[in-house]
């Protein structure tokens, strides 16, 4: 596997050319929040609106047929990207959050009763916590959590004990957006299945950054967002196994998700349409499909390897700065995310001063408050990497932190 041609890749992303302050080019280290978009993704949507825009599925004119074809091609393309056997297993949503809520509302309300157990983890993003809390409250379902160890790994022994509660569902993130930890998804899923549970993987951070294959994982539901994988906002995906999706009741009601409507009742459409009510985000699906093509053209293995190299270098450099405390495991167990604290300055101040140097990082709880509570810190500063990240950018980060220390020291 050849290393990436980063110079060439960076030219694909117009925003990386932006000067944030005179002479200070953008150093974008916030890809875990949202990834930047390559020209080909932007242009695919632009072309769609200038040339093919129409509402889909019910039109006989060429625009409607083109739009329908583009939309369904995007579905097939996404299915291929995650190794799904059948494009009908791909449901387009707004984002990861909506995808998880869809499962909580449709599968959850149809299958869970008072006293049933759901296993989550202490490192979940709010998107994979709150929907289950809402369900738990409504249905007296019990939530249990796989603990996180001091070095940011899931405690697999505790997990095995929790499985003795005969959970109905195990829902967890494949990669933490704070710790960077890449969890052993295959093993977690196998153990869950052995215990009779079904599984949901929050792939918001994993699908953009490492190869993910739903058949190899044998996962039941996988949720992810286009905007974190070089695709547009307003587009997300729920993968679900056919057998599960077919048995689930609809979630949102409206146009396209029906087969027949009478005044007082309706018959639902077949999957995936059953779960896509109303006019879908066609341009966004087209953009996501272009993003998939872009990532495929580089190769997910090469992307993962590149990020591993950058994150290793970043850990090495940051560990040399006195007062820096890094959360999460070492580079071999994590993706391109480094969250840290600095003893003498608050994360918000760190981020603000870095930004003076054109460096965009994020500070706060990163939508993972319980995880921060676990480490008893209110907030961290987070640098996160992607295909276009370079060692020089890590060096800028380190220099920026020296500035912070100079101001607060």
């Amino acid at each position, binding site marked *: 596997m050849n290393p990436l041609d980063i110079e060439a890749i960076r030219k694909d992303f117009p925003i990386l050319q932006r000067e944030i*302050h005179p002479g200070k080019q953008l150093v974008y280290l916030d890809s875990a929040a949202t990834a930047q978009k390559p020209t080909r993704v932007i242009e695919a949507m632009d072309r769609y609106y200038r040339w093919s825009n129409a509402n889909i599925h019910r039109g006989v004119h060429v625009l409607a047929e083109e739009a329908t074809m583009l939309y369904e091609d995007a579905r097939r393309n996404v299915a291929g990207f995650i190794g799904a056997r059948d494009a009908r297993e791909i449901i387009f949503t707004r984002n990861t959050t909506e995808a998880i809520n869809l499962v909580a509302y449709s599968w959850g309300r149809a299958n869970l009763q008072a006293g049933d157990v759901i296993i989550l983890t202490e490192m979940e993003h709010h998107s994979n916590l709150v929907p289950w809390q809402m369900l738990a409250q409504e249905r007296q379902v019990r939530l249990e959590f796989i603990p996180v160890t001091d070095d940011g790994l899931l405690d697999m022994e505790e997990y095995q004990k929790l499985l003795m509660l005969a959970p109905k569902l195990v829902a967890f993130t494949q990669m933490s957006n704070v710790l960077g930890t890449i969890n052993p998804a295959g093993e977690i899923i196998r153990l869950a299945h052995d215990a009779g549970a079904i599984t949901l993987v929050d792939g918001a951070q994993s699908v953009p950054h490492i190869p993910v294959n739903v058949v190899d994982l044998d996962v039941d539901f996988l949720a992810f967002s286009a905007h974190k994988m070089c695709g547009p906002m307003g587009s997300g995906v729920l993968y679900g196994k056919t057998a599960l999706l077919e048995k689930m009741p609809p979630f949102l009601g409206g146009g396209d998700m029906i087969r027949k409507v009478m005044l007082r009742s309706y018959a639902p459409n077949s999957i995936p349409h059953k779960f896509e009510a109303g006019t879908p985000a066609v341009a966004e699906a087209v953009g996501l499909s272009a993003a998939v093509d872009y990532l495929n053209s580089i190769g997910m293995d090469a992307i993962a390897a590149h990020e591993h190299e950058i994150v290793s270098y970043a850990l090495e450099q940051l560990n040399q700065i006195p007062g820096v405390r890094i959360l999460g495991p070492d580079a071999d167990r994590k993706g391109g995310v480094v969250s840290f604290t600095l003893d003498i*300055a*608050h*994360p*918000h*101040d760190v981020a*603000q*001063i870095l930004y*003076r140097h054109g460096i965009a990082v994020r*500070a*706060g*709880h990163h939508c993972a408050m319980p995880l921060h509570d676990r480490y008893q810190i*209110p*907030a961290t500063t987070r640098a996160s990497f992607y295909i276009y990240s370079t060692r020089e950018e890590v060096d800028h980060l380190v220099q920026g932190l020296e500035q912070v220390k100079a*101001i*607060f020291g």
Partner: protein
Amino acid sequence: MDDLYREVIIEHYKNPGFRGELDPHDISFEDENPLCGDHIRIDLRVNENEVVTEAAFSGHGCAISQASADLLLEFIIGKTLDEIRQLTKDDLLELLGIELGPVRLKCALLSLKVLKAGVYGLGEASDSLVEGD
């Protein structure tokens, strides 16, 4: 380049003059900024003419929120509660002497919000106390 971290801010952050708690107090209120977890509590003592005689803040958060609290309390010593009720966002920003984007503005305004909620005797601090110009 902005001078968000000009010396006076860092100075008030590192060596605050009004950090602490007052017990007993006449007025006390606390709140946090859920976005970033900044937390401020303010205690006041006032005399029979409703003039602030003593003030203290506690809590944690970024330099902007903590320095802003310290500067604010320094400013209100000797002022009446009525004068405090008239304080606006602009007054505070003048004290700070910096310009702020919308996210950091919330950090800066937290102390004013807490102060005014306490002085008005409200059950809850509302953004509308410090908005509106």
